[in-house]
């Protein structure tokens, strides 16, 4: 007899529908699974056998064939266990076959017949809703996560037996109550903790308001990482769609326990990371740090220490907001809309510009600059020098709180949205040269200063566009329609320096 169960495989970070077919025929007792599964899928035979028997069901002593369709899709992981087991029960008449219609199943089995936690429940729930299923059976631990998807009945069970009895008509157990989440504002790092750092705080605010990627330069221990960690706290809160996307990605990556993620992600990979680790890859393809930082902040500390291939791999994610990975005949894409914050020492020893502590020669400085140069720098609109705060500043009061800055940022973002409609850019940091020409008007004085900076050789052509983008954001924060002279001057002071500047002799 034949039974069919719907489930979902995780393809990258997206769900793909998979039909589990279980067929039982007369013949020598055997259990085979076909359909391009990995080792975990092949081993599920033994888990299912024990789970079925330990749940006091009968394991048919006949020839059992299970197929995972479509056969062309590579399937990985133990998430098919529960579906296969329920299919087997239906095929052997221990469960009414009709009860499985319109119902998706997801979960790993233990030998004792419990449904185990497995990553990706939210993605599966989204897939189930899109495929038109009405009910979804998930492990109890994942119920809250799956329940974030509306328009789908979530059946949260802890054992195979429980799942079978619900399908047979018993009432579904109530969903576990939402755990009380800690108020995120209290635990998250806040700008109110920062003492001194007046200029870096300003740069952080501009970066958040315009979606500009930011480079921080400063000696070790001056607070670059501390500042970067506080960027998510001033970005606008995640919208519900963004929150679900973030939760789904983190759930697939197995990073997230329960509930909806409300705070913007902050990812700070170590500089030894590979290109695949940063942009996504491996086989089967897994999301990289760029995708885990989607809708949040990707922080690269010690930028000059990152391998060149890894940094090169960040180009497409930065340009397109997604990364496509080709494996075999198929191409997958991961979303990568993050803000990039990078930090670096000003020179190899880290102390350039700090009294006379720097011991680097001119050649060392040149090499350091060269390591930093390249396509990535083109995407960094802002450069701010982070210096050790003076003692008096450390003992003084803080300047602002995240809530205050967050409000200004939200207002500035709203202005941009209204102005940039139809240009394809969501914020000033995304503006290309055309969008900048049409929407970033400079007043006469600002225009003159910009021209002067350009002819004096302080700016490259691309640097000029970056300065205009930043100046536009500064004007947005000030609430002005045109970019004025002070806006432009401030943007100029936060520009990227040319390779020869600050590196000794030109």
């Amino acid at each position: 007899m034949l039974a069919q169960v719907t489930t979902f495989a995780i393809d990258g970070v997206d769900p793909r529908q998979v039909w589990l077919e279980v067929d039982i025929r007369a013949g020598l007792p055997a259990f085979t699974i076909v359909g391009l599964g990995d080792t975990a899928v092949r081993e599920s035979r033994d888990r299912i056998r024990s789970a079925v028997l330990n749940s006091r069901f009968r394991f048919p002593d006949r020839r059992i064939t299970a197929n995972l369709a479509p056969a062309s899709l590579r399937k990985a992981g133990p998430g098919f266990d529960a579906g296969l087991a329920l299919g087997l029960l239906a095929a052997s008449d221990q469960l009414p076959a009709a009860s499985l219609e319109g119902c998706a199943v997801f979960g790993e089995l233990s030998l004792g017949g419990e449904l185990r936690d497995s990553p990706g429940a939210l993605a599966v729930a989204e897939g189930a809703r899109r495929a038109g299923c009405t009910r979804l059976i998930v492990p109890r631990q994942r119920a809250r996560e799956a329940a974030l998807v509306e328009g789908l009945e979530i059946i949260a069970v802890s054992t195979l037996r429980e799942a079978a009895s619900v399908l047979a008509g018993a009432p579904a157990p109530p969903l576990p109550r939402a755990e009380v989440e800690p108020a995120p504002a209290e635990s998250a790092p806040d700008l109110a903790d920062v003492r001194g750092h007046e200029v870096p705080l300003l740069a952080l605010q501009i970066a958040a308001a315009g979606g500009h990627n930011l480079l921080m330069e400063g000696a070790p221990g001056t607070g670059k990482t501390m500042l970067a960690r506080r960027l998510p706290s001033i970005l606008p809160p995640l919208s519900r769609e963004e929150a679900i996307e973030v939760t789904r990605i983190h759930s697939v990556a197995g990073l997230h326990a329960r509930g909806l993620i409300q705070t913007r992600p902050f990812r700070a990979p170590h500089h030894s990371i590979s290109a695949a680790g940063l942009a996504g890859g491996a086989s089967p393809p897994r999301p990289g740090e760029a995708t885990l930082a989607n809708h949040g902040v990707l922080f690269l500390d010690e930028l000059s220490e990152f391998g060149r291939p890894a940094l090169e791999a960040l180009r497409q994610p930065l340009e397109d907001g997604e990364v496509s990975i080709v494996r075999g005949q198929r191409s997958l894409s991961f979303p990568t809309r993050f803000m990039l914050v990078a930090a670096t020492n000003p020179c190899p020893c880290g102390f350039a510009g700090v009294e006379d502590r720097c011991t680097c020669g001119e050649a060392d400085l040149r090499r350091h600059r060269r390591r930093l140069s390249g396509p990535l720098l083109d995407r960094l609109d802002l450069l701010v020098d982070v210096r050790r705060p003076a003692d008096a500043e450390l003992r003084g009061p803080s300047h602002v709180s995240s809530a205050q800055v967050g409000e200004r940022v939200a207002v500035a973002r709203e202005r941009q949205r209204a102005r940039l409609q139809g240009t394809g850019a969501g914020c000033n940091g995304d503006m290309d040269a055309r969008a900048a020409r049409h929407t970033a008007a400079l007043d006469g004085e600002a225009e003159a200063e910009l021209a002067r900076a350009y002819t004096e050789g302080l700016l490259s052509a691309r640097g000029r566009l970056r300065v205009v983008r930043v100046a536009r954001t500064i004007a947005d924060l000030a609430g002005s329609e045109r970019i004025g002279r002070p806006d432009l001057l401030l943007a100029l002071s936060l520009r990227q320096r040319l390779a020869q500047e600050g590196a000794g002799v030109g």
Partner: protein
Amino acid sequence: MSARVCPDCARRAWLLERLAGHLEPVRERIAELLELDDRALVAAVGGEHRSAIEDELERQEVSELEDRAERAGVEIVCRCDSAYPVALRDLPSPPSVLHVTGSLERLTALLEEPSVAIVGSRRPSSYGLETTRRIAGELARAGLTVVSGMALGTDAAAHTGVLDALGATVAVLPGGADVAYPARHRRLLARIRERGVAVSELGPGVMPRRWMFPARNRIIAALADLTVLVQGRERSGALLTAEWAARLGRGTGAVPGQVAGPLSAAPHRLLREGATLIASAQDVLDAVYGVGAVLVPRRRTARLEPSLTALLEAIADGEEGQAAFARAGLVGESGMAALARLELDGLVRRGPGGRYLAR
């Protein structure tokens, strides 16, 4: 383009290039060898080619040397000519022909002012670079001529400091006066020639060999009234320049460094031997003109707003960030905008680590 060369000097100039390869293995003794007359020099290093070289030497014509210089756009002057820099005559072996790019007239004018050589390590620290640059710039503003060798590091910083202060400088090159060495300094050489000059003992197009560097150092020392050494290791080539200066009766000075730093070895040795301690351009002026006779000129800041003037002064005093802003009554936003204005006006520039430095 003027060419003022007598046949004897032309032959000597030819000989030096002809023997360039022969001098390489004996470069330890280059100073004494250069003092020998033509025949003795050929005899000393000519080896088996002696007679051939002597024959060739007899056949050399002035016109050939002149044509070559003309084609390369290099002016030449020999030591018998009145336009030849007087200072070089103090050398036991003054270059027979001096090759000049820029212009000979300009060289004469530049050498009428007191001149200071600034030399030092090819791999200075950023402290060395900044000090060199600052002192060179201030000396240029005070009207002195800065002489150096356009090598990597200190030399280049000295030239750059002068050029950034819109001054003129003399570069003494090891190879031909039209050959940028190191090649990385091609742009620097072009900038030097815009207002200043590059000079050399060797003919146009000659690539530097190792013996030419100590030979070049003697010319730097002779051209300058005072030789200042900034940084150098124990066996720094810059010490040779300072030794020549002392031998020629010129002044020597040294910029002190960190007590234990390896780059302090050379300057501290000079100081121990009696060199003048140089901590600022004023120290140089005191050494050249007598204490207090000439002061480092103040910057022109008259047309700036008071807050910008205050900020500029704070930066010139070495303050930075909020401390500098506070002195000018500015805060982060207005302070950064003010710095950008000063930078656009060319009054400050970004140094190592992005630090703002007064020009």
